[in-house]
């Protein structure tokens, strides 16, 4: 896999052939009910969602089918990016499905499915973000990742590691 041999960390990124989606996978050393809390309570999500360059400035969520959510990420340069959507399915503690509108491109919402499966006290989390088309995925991610695929990525990784910089 692309990411494993390059960087620290266990998060997998999977891009499937011909599908306008990204899948992110990770296992957490905690039972599903706690992972669920961390994903569905704003005071918890505020503490983890984001990174050294992007902080979560607004986090509102009304976790029930038909309930709305909104998040605003603030970049280091002060620029803000907003996302919002509506919960479609809420099944404690295993599945939550919601729409996600990237506010700069509001006409193309994506559909995000977060699936939790607990085993031996650990919980694997799969986040699938499905866009309505390759174009809107591109707009969302600010890049043009058309028809990316795992095989291509593996190849890519081979090229990059094999070639002189």
């Amino acid at each position, binding site marked *: 896999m692309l990411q494993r041999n390059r960087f620290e960390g266990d998060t997998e990124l999977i891009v499937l052939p011909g599908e306008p989606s990204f899948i992110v996978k990770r296992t957490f050393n905690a039972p599903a009910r706690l992972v669920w809390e961390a994903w569905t309570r704003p005071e918890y999500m505020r503490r983890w969602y984001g990174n050294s360059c992007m902080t979560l400035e607004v986090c509102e969520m009304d976790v029930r089918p038909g309930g709305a959510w909104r998040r605003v990420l603030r970049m280091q340069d002060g620029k803000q990016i907003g996302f919002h959507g509506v919960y479609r399915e809420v099944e404690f503690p295993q599945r939550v499905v919601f729409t996600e509108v990237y506010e700069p491109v509001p006409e193309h919402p994506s559909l995000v499915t977060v699936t939790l499966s607990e085993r031996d006290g650990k919980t694997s989390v799969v986040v699938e973000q499905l866009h309505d088309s390759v174009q809107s995925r591109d707009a969302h991610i600010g890049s043009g990742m058309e028809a990316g695929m795992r095989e291509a990525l593996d190849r*890519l990784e081979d090229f990059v590691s094999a070639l002189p910089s």
Partner: protein
Amino acid sequence: MTESEALDATFTALADPTRRAILARLTEGEASVTELGRPFALSQPAVSRHLRVLERAGLITRGRRAQLRPRRLEVAPLKEAVEWLERYRQFWEESFVRLDGLLEELKEKENAAKK
């Protein structure tokens, strides 16, 4: 090309198995159109079409040597594509490391409450 268009061209080019095989061959060194087409049951025009897609993406360039104009691999666009994907993954990884910390705290709270 904008960065977005460049990445788009790179991934479009990589989406096809024949083109990936051509790129793989070029990692061994430059090659002529005839040499590149040999492993595939493809007409020369078909091979040339694949090469044009790769050229438009900036993944290969033509050498100047004689009339053969051998193709060679260009590394920069591939690196950009990998870097973009890595930034996306990294965002999640950094978030998840923080989530690990929060979950530890929640577990401790839960254990303390049981006592």
